[in-house]
């Protein structure tokens, strides 16, 4: 793998250079203490040291709300929205975020590909950046290290005050053509970037824990504190559920069909015609959320469908922690195992 050193002061020049390929989307400051991915207008405003953005990068490929079609009630015709294939560079992406896009690819593109997602994804390039884990990141526990480079075309590793730039793919190499601020370098291993939050078991032991956790008391304990706002799902980078609804204009002639992100933590998510609700209580819904991340899809794909970004925990008004729930389940499981052993 080719490795170059890049001065911190040359990062804006790199961003400007990448702009020749297509629109550059990168993390920016938002509000008092937050960040969000925005199109770059001024490369000096890009923030490369950030903990996490409010919404995941998913929003660029599966927008929070998007129009699927326009329709007319006059002649009962419709016109699907066409999503153009545009080149874009996603700059300053953390490893777990990249992994979430790869998981979304699986959800949206395997089998019959979802065309809107496919078009947005087709000419995308990803430039990763290292990060210092805060009190919520736990991606190492789900098998994603800070320097995991799968999916990236280029990767920036922060080394003391400057960066080391790794060329990972041919596409990445093409992006750098004509950029002359790089100096060949030996890769340096960065020490001391430790995760503070950890799941106690290796992730490949979790499906077994979940196999016996369905009737655990932990779910009721969580449900007591959960206010059901749905923030955990709505900020999750691997959740892909959406709701579709039609909206007719005041003229009562034309309208549009839109889809918006949905959340299985909302009480109406599993409600069906006639008023029956398959997951009526918060307890059922919390359990379902975690099973979707660590059991159902994991059983099929062999990977946890959680990438450890920590958003569900960081943005929970009730301070409910995904890692704490799992560690509680593990503790309960160990206790049950112990009791079994003693009896034998």
């Amino acid at each position: 793998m080719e490795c170059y050193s890049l001065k911190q002061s040359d990062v804006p020049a790199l961003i400007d250079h990448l702009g020749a390929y297509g629109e550059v989307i990168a993390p920016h400051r938002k509000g008092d203490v937050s960040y969000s991915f925005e199109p770059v207008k001024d490369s000096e405003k890009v923030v490369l040291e950030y903990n996490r953005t409010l919404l995941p990068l998913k929003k660029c490929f599966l927008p929070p709300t998007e129009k699927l079609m326009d329709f007319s009630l006059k002649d009962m015709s419709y016109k699907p929205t066409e999503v153009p294939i545009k080149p874009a560079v996603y700059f300053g992406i953390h490893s777990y975020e990249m992994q979430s896009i790869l998981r979304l690819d699986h959800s949206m593109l395997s089998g019959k590909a979802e065309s809107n997602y496919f078009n947005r994804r087709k000419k995308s390039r990803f430039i990763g950046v290292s990060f210092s884990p805060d009190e919520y990141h736990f991606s190492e526990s789900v098998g994603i290290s800070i320097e995991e480079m799968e999916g990236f075309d280029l990767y920036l590793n922060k080394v003391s005050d400057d960066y080391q730039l790794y060329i990972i793919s041919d596409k990445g190499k093409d992006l750098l053509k004509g950029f002359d601020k790089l100096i060949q370098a030996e890769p340096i291993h960065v020490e001391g970037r430790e995760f503070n939050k950890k799941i106690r078991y290796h992730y490949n032991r979790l499906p077994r824990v979940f196999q016996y956790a369905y009737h655990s008391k932990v779910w009721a304990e969580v449900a007591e504190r959960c206010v059901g706002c749905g923030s955990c799902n709505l900020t999750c980078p691997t959740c892909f559920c959406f709701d579709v609804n039609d909206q007719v204009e005041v003229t009562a002639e034309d309208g549009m069909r839109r889809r918006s992100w949905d959340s299985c933590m909302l009480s109406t998510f599993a409600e069906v015609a006639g008023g029956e609700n398959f997951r009526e209580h918060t307890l059922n819904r919390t359990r379902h959320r975690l099973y979707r991340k660590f059991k159902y899809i994991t059983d099929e794909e062999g990977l946890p469908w959680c990438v450890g970004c920590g958003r569900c925990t960081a943005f929970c008004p009730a301070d409910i922690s995904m890692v704490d729930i799992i560690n509680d389940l593990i503790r309960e499981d160990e206790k049950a195992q112990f009791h079994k052993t003693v009896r034998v």
Partner: protein
Amino acid sequence: MKPKVAFFDFTSCEGCQLNKLNLENDLLDILKHVEIVEFREAMDDKADAYDIAFIEGSISSPSCVERIHDIRRRSKILVALGSCAVNGGVNAMKNLQPIDEVRETVYGEDKYLFATLPAMSVSSIVKVDYEVRGCPMTQQDFLKLLVSLVLGKQAPRYDSPVCVECKLSENECLYNRGMVCLGPITRGGCDAICPSFGQFCTGCRGLLDEPNYIGMLEVMTNHGISLDEAKKRMLLFNSNEVQL
């Protein structure tokens, strides 16, 4: 024939009616679909029967009860408009105090001249077919409902919390900015308009079905306000709904 539509006000500030007159860009389109036959805030005419009656305000006196029964009898569809009509709204705060004290504060020694009842939602007296929530009622909701009724379709019902629309707009959570917000348990559909402009949610659209009251009070007190203050905030628009 265009459906005959009427607007009525009960105990309220009439802000919801005013809010409709503010729909300047859409008013002409609306009038293409409906015939307004009674609207005290905007015109003098009166009619005998209505296809759709929009009711603003809460029911708070024996005469209100009589009048709402009368309107219901003459209406095919009845819609509660705005927070007061939907659940009693801010008016219902009076229900938290002894009724005699309330009457004395308002009317002094003439209190026996004015009969009064606890402030109630329209649906606690007559059947309500649809509701448009908010204080004042959300204009977009009103338009959506009107279009659905004109097209003869079931009106959409929004029953997700305010947090959903707030998250979809990628707003920074007001809890992260040191505020205490009722968004998590308040019924959305308002495009999270208050949080989007930096004002915490006060719960004007009513609460979700079966909200986690204890959990919400815990969230609020953990973010720096007293239990007493937290309860007061919850009750502001929802005195008739909150069960503590």
